[in-house]
């Protein structure tokens, strides 16, 4: 039997968004992205849709010579970025791969940027996403160094930090974020994170059954040192291949210990100098 075509693309169809944004008790589930890199065809529609919806400026015209990637990385003006990784060895043709991955802010469940923001500009919004309020941001840049993924940038034009908002404005109007809406192959899925995780685990199993045993999820679950990500990925190579940290760390991880060592070092130095100079003084 040939099958009807509906439901083959976005898990959550646009007309269903309003319904899934709150359950019977009015509780809102966290909304997020699942980016399946095995479905990505590198068309960059997500990059353009993001820029168009958010009216972001272009980054300038730089031919990098690095595969088809000329926007290079996420920044204050590029909130979706498609990475191209050529793994081609003409000797072993069956292993030739050209990996493509649409990168985005991970909207961490415990976001270091949010924890580091001294002004309260960085918040979790009602959809569970990490959002910078540009009119409150003072441009201190702590969030930039706090983010283990290098997502955030500061605009030289308005002095504020900027990053993906997970289309906060569109979600408020029950709309799919621009990048997910534009993705022709549904490599970018948008929906309640729990639903997405369930779907993603099934997808990994399917791929394993078909022999694509490299497939795994990145950021779907918490690690020993980091919270789950509300924008998580299906990858087929080591995270470093996609320019992702193998084990992201929060800057605050081990902070007590580091403060302890600092204190200890301070005490030790004080004692040392007291001894050294104190002895010298008596001479």
């Amino acid at each position, binding site marked *: *039997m*040939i*099958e*009807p*075509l*509906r439901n*083959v*693309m976005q898990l959550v169809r646009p007309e269903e968004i309003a319904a899934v944004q709150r359950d019977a008790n009015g509780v809102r589930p966290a909304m997020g992205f699942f980016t399946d890199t*095995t*479905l990505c*065809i*590198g*068309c*960059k*529609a997500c*990059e*353009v849709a993001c*820029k*168009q919806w*958010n*009216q*972001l*400026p*272009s*980054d*300038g*015209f730089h*031919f*990098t*010579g690095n*595969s*088809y990637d*000329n*926007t290079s990385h996420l920044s*204050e*003006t590029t909130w979706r970025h498609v990475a191209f990784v*050529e793994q*081609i*060895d*003409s000797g072993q*043709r069956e292993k*030739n*791969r*050209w*990996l*493509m991955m649409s990168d985005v802010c991970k909207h961490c469940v415990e976001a270091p940027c949010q924890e580091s923001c001294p002004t309260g500009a960085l918040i979790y919004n009602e959809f569970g996403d990490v959002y910078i309020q*540009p*009119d409150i941001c003072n441009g201190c840049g702590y969030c930039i160094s706090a983010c283990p993924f290098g997502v955030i940038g500061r605009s030289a*034009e*308005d*002095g*504020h930090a*900027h990053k993906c*908002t997970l289309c906060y*404005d569109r979600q408020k109007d029950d709309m799919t974020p621009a990048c997910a809406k534009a993705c*022709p*192959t*549904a490599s970018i899925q948008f929906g309640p994170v729990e639903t997405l995780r369930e779907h993603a685990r099934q997808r990994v199993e*399917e791929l394993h059954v*078909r022999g694509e045993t490299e497939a795994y999820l990145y950021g779907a679950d918490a690690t020993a040192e980091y919270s789950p990500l509300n924008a998580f990925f299906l990858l087929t190579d080591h995270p470093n291949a996609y320019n992702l940290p193998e084990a992201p760390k929060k800057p605050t991880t081990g902070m007590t210990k580091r403060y302890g060592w600092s204190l200890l070092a301070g005490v030790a130095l004080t004692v040392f100098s007291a001894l050294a100079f104190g002895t010298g003084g008596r001479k």
Partner: protein
Amino acid sequence: MPSLGATFGRGAATTYQQDLANSDCILIMGSNMAEAHPVGFRWPMKAKAKGGKIIHVDPRFTRTSAVSDVYVPIRAGSDIAFLGGLVNYVLTHERWFKEYVLAYTNAANLIDVEFQDTEELDGVFSGYDPVSREYQANKAHWDYEKPPTDGPSAGDDEEDSDGGAGQGARHEEGAHGTHGYGLMGGASAHTTRPKDVTHAPRDETLQDPRCVMQILRRHFARYTPETVSQICGCSPEQLIEVAELLCDNSGRERTAALCYAVGWTQHSTGVQIIRAASILQTLLGNIGRPGGGILALRGHASIQGSTDISTLYDLLPGYLPQPIADPRHETLDGYCEMEGLPTGYWVHFKEFAVSLLKAWYGREAQPENNFRFQWLPRIDGDYSMVPYFDKMAKGEVEGYFVLGQNPAAGTSNGKRVRKGLRSLKWLVVADWFETETATFWRDDPQGPPPAEVGTEVFFFPAASMPEKEGSVTNTQRLLQWHDRSVDPPGDCRSDLWFVYNLGKRLKELYKDSIDPRDASLLSLTWDYGYEHPLRLPDGTMSRIADEPDADRVLQEINGWHTDKTDTTTGKPLLLSGFSDCKDDGSTACGGWVYSGVYPEYGHNRARDRESHDSNPVHPNWGFAWPHNRRILYNRASADPQGNPWSERKKYLWWDAAKRTWTGYDQPDFPPDKAPDYRPGPDSKGMDAIGGTDPFIMKPDGRAWLFAPGGAKDGPLPAHYEPIESPLHNLLHPKYQDSPTVRYFEGPDNPIAHTPESAYPIVACTFRMTEHYLSGPMSRFNSWLNELMPAMFVELSPELAAEKGIVNGGWLTVRSPRGEIEARALVTRRLHPLQVQGQTVHQVGIPFQWGYAGETVGSNVNDLIAMSADANVSMHETKVFACQIVAGRSARQPTEPSVPTARYANWERIPDTPAAAQPEGHMRKNS
């Protein structure tokens, strides 16, 4: 497109993109579907998610290859050899679908005893004339063996001596949806009297050496995996792997689809490449079935529409041929007799021709004046694009209109095209931006100073998609309507406005003329104005008063009864479909293939958007011609008895109780014709099509594995090298390139006919997702320019090392026509091939830059020769031979013609508070 017409009857994709989701295996070749058709590519991805296999065969490892299960690199221009290898594999391993092939194709038909194959004549078929470089119809003998009962009246014999047994080389294509009559500067008849082919002798055992199956076996016998490997540069094992995958995924239970695009069409052998694919898919039994078929991916928006409602010089709307300056086309009856067919659907030819004349000339067209058939212009030569620019470069053209095209950057031998433009007295360009064609007099770095250019250029700003209404016919023959959301800014106007008002002004200019030749213009019906002032969706009145109503244009294309009135509106009753057309003047129909799209006032089916029905074909989304049939020849989805080949591939079947064809789609077959119907010896028209003949546009209702007519360069595909190649033709050493290709050779267009050491590298051209064609719509947009900001050439590390080229550095590409410069993108996605004992390097060159826009760069079309294939005057832009050196070249585009707009829109969004302005407006005090 003539190739699909020659094989199956209609020059259009046999299937639709969504149906690819039902495929078990998809062969993508001559197409970079993921990059060039990314939205449609969701369906192959869906098929893959369901466990289907995607195969990509291409000179370059592209984004399509990246998501394919199997990728096979081949040398550009060697496609027929690869496909011939697949056909040979299917035949020698007996993997063809026997029941299907026997019942639905001409495999059993006997061919004229005097026919000779390329294998017998060292590279050409019988009928070849080396002087005219054409196949002569009267010497070709490509025809079916004559039926034994063929009436030997004196008249018939005369026709035979005139047309020969060859309705062959010339006949069918004229009548049936293909274009290009081989009028090389002179008028000559392109048709002979059509013949009855339904009763041609067949050998159902397929043993007769003259039957099509045996001819096929002999013709493809030399395309062994080893030979293919020597021509294509892939390994024999790779060919076998692809062949096995296709065979394993074809048959009763499974179907395989084939997708191609301009990577096949833009070759000197393009028509024959697609013929080879058609033969393969027919042998595997994949045509007319879900998940099967051949998807012709068209090069840009509504190209299918511009063939259907034709903008081609040699076609009238609905694939009726433009009459030619020939005595036999003098009268309407003569024209219809020559171009119609006694059997098959084209028996209705006259009904469509008369209805078209009624639509154009209204009350003026009457039976007593032959419906004013004599007013139609006759063609006396080849006015297709390449020969036209050849004439222009020789100074033979005075003025030129360019709407929706950019020939200065997008046409082969760009330098010669621009020379042609400089020889014009006037040029009209309507476009969104000042393209290369609009600024050739000022910005061409290789042109003379502007003061020396005499052409007067008129630039008309054009409206963009959301600023105008109308329909777009996509790659799968689907009409989809789009509305006007806002008025276009300033003086921008739709193309429809332009043509409509040009017509109105011409009529006004000639209104007092009594010259008989102006009567045609003055009598042309031209009433497309809005009946009520146009209101925009937001309720305001449109600013543009003289915009025509696109709905009325579509109503005219759909057609109406001239003698019946719609009771609710008082207007002429609209046709419910093309079967309503009459040849007595009681119907008017501006494009019969679309008829049925507007069955009643208020219901434009191109606007239908029903997506939540249970029918997997989704018939109420848009309207597909003909008659909303989504898979053509779908009678073939059932077996000869009318039952589905399998439950899994069920699509259309015969309901014996109700005595009708039923299923998910509209039957592309007479709905009440039973599978056991057999035509009588004297049956004519559709009565001559039996209950097991799915290809109703063919006179015998069968798919043509061997094409007695339809392609002017041979009844079967044979491998020839591209017109410029570093290698000799291994299969046919006497004929290096296609024996029927035309060259337009001259000082501006030199060609390296034989392999030359000066041009040892194979170049293929390509496009990418980031830019649109030659860039007229994308290189003026900074969001797209930042993604692909510079002209580049893809080459392998091996070639780069040999030439001292570094990644990101500059290189120069040379061909006999000139040189261009580009940045180097050194990548392992290209790698040298071992072909015939030598290393052949290939480079990939995008054709998406020119001298106009925010980003500029050299134009690869400046390197490509003007040439034309025999069927459709198609240029060979997908492959040529070149040399590459490190460093830059002089007089290349370096300065953008417009400043970069960093933001698309500096304006604050009106009626919106500051906090709700777009997040990306990063300005102080925002």
